[in-house]
């Protein structure tokens, strides 16, 4: 296990093999950690909102803090019109955050270090934002690609660039989260390999590095969930308030 730093990203089947036609839908370790993080979120918010006391206990404090944090973020970036989409962005943030944080436990599995998971999340956001934009503005939503105040000669070039940058949004959104998580976990495993390789004499230096990296990775795990949510808000803002 210590020899290959990429070994931690292996997806393997636990339990019986289930096939739906050609597609393998058996329960894997990735699905196990998704279930664990979803259940943890549900438990926290069930216990957090059960007894609403004026002086909150710890779980209620956690629930209230995360709620007000995301609510404030949506209000600041996407305006009050984005209020109906609060529950979607909140669950997106909490899911990504808990998947990242559960990945920080040693010998656990990081769900978000697989591009297919993050790409599905980003594709949901992209398709949803498109639908909202077209419902709200009709074909006027295409004005998004024509920025105001651009000289008419430059316009064909600008429109092409805008369309390409718009279409690359789901890719950059998903690759950002995936690359951050994968790079961080690979780096931690590489330093762990150094500790084993250098032994009792020289292993202390990489060990202290690994401890510092764990702190950095916890910061990154929170930060990437936050960035994922805030970029969703920014895209939603483009769809809701055209030419603000």
């Amino acid at each position: 296990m210590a020899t290959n730093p990429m070994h931690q990203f292996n997806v393997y089947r636990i339990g019986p093999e289930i096939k739906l036609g050609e597609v393998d839908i058996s329960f894997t370790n990735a699905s196990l950690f998704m279930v664990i993080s979803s259940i943890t979120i549900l438990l926290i918010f069930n216990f957090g909102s059960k007894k609403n006391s004026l002086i909150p206990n710890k779980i209620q404090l956690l629930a209230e803090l995360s709620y007000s944090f995301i609510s404030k973020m949506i209000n600041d970036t996407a305006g009050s019109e984005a209020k109906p989409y609060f529950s979607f962005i909140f669950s997106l943030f909490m899911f990504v955050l808990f998947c990242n944080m559960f990945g920080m436990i040693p010998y656990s599995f990081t769900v978000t270090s697989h591009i297919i998971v993050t790409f599905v999340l980003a594709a949901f956001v992209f398709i949803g934002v498109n639908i909202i934009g077209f419902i709200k503005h009709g074909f006027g939503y295409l004005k998004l690609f024509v920025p105001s105040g651009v000289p008419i000669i430059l316009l064909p070039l600008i429109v092409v660039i805008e369309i390409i940058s718009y279409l690359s949004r789901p890719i950059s959104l998903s690759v950002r989260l995936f690359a951050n998580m994968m790079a961080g976990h690979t780096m931690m495993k590489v330093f762990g390999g150094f500790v084993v390789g250098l032994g009792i004499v020289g292993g202390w230096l990489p060990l202290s590095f690994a401890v510092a990296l764990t702190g950095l990775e916890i910061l990154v795990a929170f930060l990437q969930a936050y960035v994922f949510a805030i970029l969703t808000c920014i895209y939603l803002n483009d769809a809701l308030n055209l030419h603000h």
Partner: protein
Amino acid sequence: MELEAAKMIGAGLAAISLAGAGVGIGIIFGNYLSGAMRNPSAAQKQFPNLLLGFALAEATGLFGLVVALIILFAF
């Protein structure tokens, strides 16, 4: 040239893009610090923007790292 050696060189070249991420993160934090020193009362309000810029700058470098890993492990 051997294919294996070419792959290693290519992955190493792709990882150079992380230098750009380092420069970007340094610029973001340095400018935030100098701005916060000039006007400490406005610093707290710009902290989310700092984190956003940090994450965006780091991500562009990591795209290069992903290319390196794809060269090493996917082909």
